[in-house]
């Protein structure tokens, strides 16, 4: 008697992955259409962390928006601070003193190192390379300690102000950075030895999540995902802001646009960021970190407590907020995940009329189905890891 052949199901299966899934660090849901383990289509559902950033900003004064921007991409909150402050300063028409600009470059690059270390460390530990994950978290901890000693907070820093910075660098800042970078370089070398010839890592990362150059451009992707496809587009080079045009750095680009290229791009970018920080610390000029304009700058405490004019000045800025001339503007900086743009509209009052953020990872999630179509379910984990979706920024 002939053994009966088991009938395998031919129809496609629908599977909901998330919103809370241990392998997707972030609250997001994938509605998958599967054929066996192959992903035929993927509908991404975002918005689980939506808290009305835009609406909240319309209720706050221009200065009170800065803590809200911390909570966008909390892995690189310093860049968000800088981007927002630069957008408002563009509308005011103010230019900060050179020392402030150099410090802003330094803190942006420290935040970028932090962001890339988080992304790469998490992505490799999800593939089983727990050691690499721990090494990168150790390196990240060194950066976070520098940020903590500078700003007083580890994540939600609120360090940058419209027209300046909260305070100057502390005296041993450069020394701390040099010491930490030495350790970080050693840790990165260890990670490189652990990963770059590791069969498991290469098999899971290379030729997975491939996206072509045309598709990436059509999906408005920016940052390491776009650069991994070979497009040389970096806001710091294309539209230089602050003092980036005086810095000597390279923009690493990939060739294939797969997960491995994204990983390598991020690591190379991180090393360039360290170069920028070292250059900026070497060139750091002396001088004030605030613009000289009483309309935007709080008076010194002695004046506030010692004179009625100082007290009134302080009261006006705190209670009514700084006045920004009516108009609208757009300013973009290079965030950890790509072009981070702020579109702000002012009606001349003390509160913004509209604040819009161009969230790079929200736009990247719009292209996620292109990256994962045709691959296996297990490939979702590294691909999603390399997109580096941060809920605070994606869902706002």
């Amino acid at each position, binding site marked *: 008697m002939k053994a009966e052949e088991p009938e395998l199901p031919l129809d496609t299966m629908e599977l909901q992955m998330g919103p809370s899934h241990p392998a997707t660090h972030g609250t997001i849901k994938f509605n998958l259409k599967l054929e066996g383990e192959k992903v035929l289509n993927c509908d991404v559902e975002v*918005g689980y962390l*939506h808290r009305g950033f*835009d609406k909240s900003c319309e209720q706050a004064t221009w200065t009170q928006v800065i803590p809200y921007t911390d909570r966008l991409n909390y892995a690189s909150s310093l860049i968000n601070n800088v981007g927002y402050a630069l957008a408002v300063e563009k509308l005011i028409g103010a230019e900060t003193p050179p020392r402030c600009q150099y410090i802003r470059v330094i803190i942006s690059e420290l935040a970028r190192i932090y962001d890339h270390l988080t992304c790469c460390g998490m992505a490799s530990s999800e593939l089983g390379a727990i050691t690499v994950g721990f090494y990168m978290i150790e390196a990240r901890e060194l950066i976070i300690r520098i940020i903590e000693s500078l700003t007083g907070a580890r994540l939600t820093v609120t360090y940058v102000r419209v027209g300046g910075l909260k305070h100057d660098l502390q005296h041993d800042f450069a020394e701390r950075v040099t010491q930490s970078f030495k350790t970080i370089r050693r840790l990165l070398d260890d990670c490189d030895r652990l990963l770059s010839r590791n069969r498991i890592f290469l098999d899971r990362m290379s030729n997975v999540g491939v996206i072509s150059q045309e598709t990436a451009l*059509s999906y408005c992707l*920016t940052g390491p995902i776009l650069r991994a496809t070979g497009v040389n587009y970096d806001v710091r080079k*294309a539209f230089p802001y602050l003092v980036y045009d005086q810095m000597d750095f390279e923009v690493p680009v990939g060739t294939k646009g797969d997960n491995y290229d994204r990983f390598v791009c991020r690591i190379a970018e991180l090393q360039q960021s360290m170069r920028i920080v070292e250059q900026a610390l070497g060139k750091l000029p002396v001088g004030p970190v605030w613009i000289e304009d009483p309309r935007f700058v709080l008076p010194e405490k002695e004046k506030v407590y010692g004179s009625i004019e100082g007290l009134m000045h302080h009261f006006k800025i705190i209670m009514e907020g700084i006045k920004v001339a009516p108009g609208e503007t757009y300013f973009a900086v290079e965030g950890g995940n790509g072009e981070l743009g702020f*579109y702000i509209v002012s009606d001349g009052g003390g509160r913004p009329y*509209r604040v819009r953020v161009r969230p790079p990872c*929200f736009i990247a999630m719009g292209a996620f189905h292109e990256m994962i179509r045709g691959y296996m379910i297990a490939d979702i984990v590294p691909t999603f890891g390399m997109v580096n979706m941060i809920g605070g920024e994606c869902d706002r």
Partner: protein
Amino acid sequence: MSESPHLSYIQERLGSKLLEVMQPQGDDVLILDRANLRESFLFLKEDTQLDYDFLSDITAVDYWRKKEPRFEVVYQVVSRSRCQRLRVRVPVPENDPSVESLTPLWRGANFLEREIWDLFGIRFIDHPDLRRILLYDEFEGFPLRKDYPVNQVQPLVPERVVDGTFVDERSQNKLLRLKKALGSKI
């Protein structure tokens, strides 16, 4: 104000579709008519002299009781070869809040336009999949409109009953009660 050559070139080619040209804070800003919007953007994208081939962002602003027409959809495009940005503002009236979708030109416009539909209630004609994105389907109103109160409370949403769910008739669980109350087909 002296205008740069590419702005006068755009003015020449777009003609009456271009309502205004401005250069505040050194940015290039166009105000375009929403009629045949996709054609205008196709020209900006494909023209070899302009080469605005990269869409950076789409957003909207509600000028309630401040400006007529009420809404404005704002596009940021980039020419990578010339390293230049362009901002295009498109006024949209309140009685018919709709503009043509740019998804056929840039597929990334899909998510951005869905977000504007979700938060402002501006429709995008020919959009392949215009659903809410950040909020849930049962949300009432459009929260980023200026006439949406900050302290608005949304009604509670009943649990969604999924077709084809197996329900044990003997147990008096929540799903069964829900099914009876709604009379839904399970």
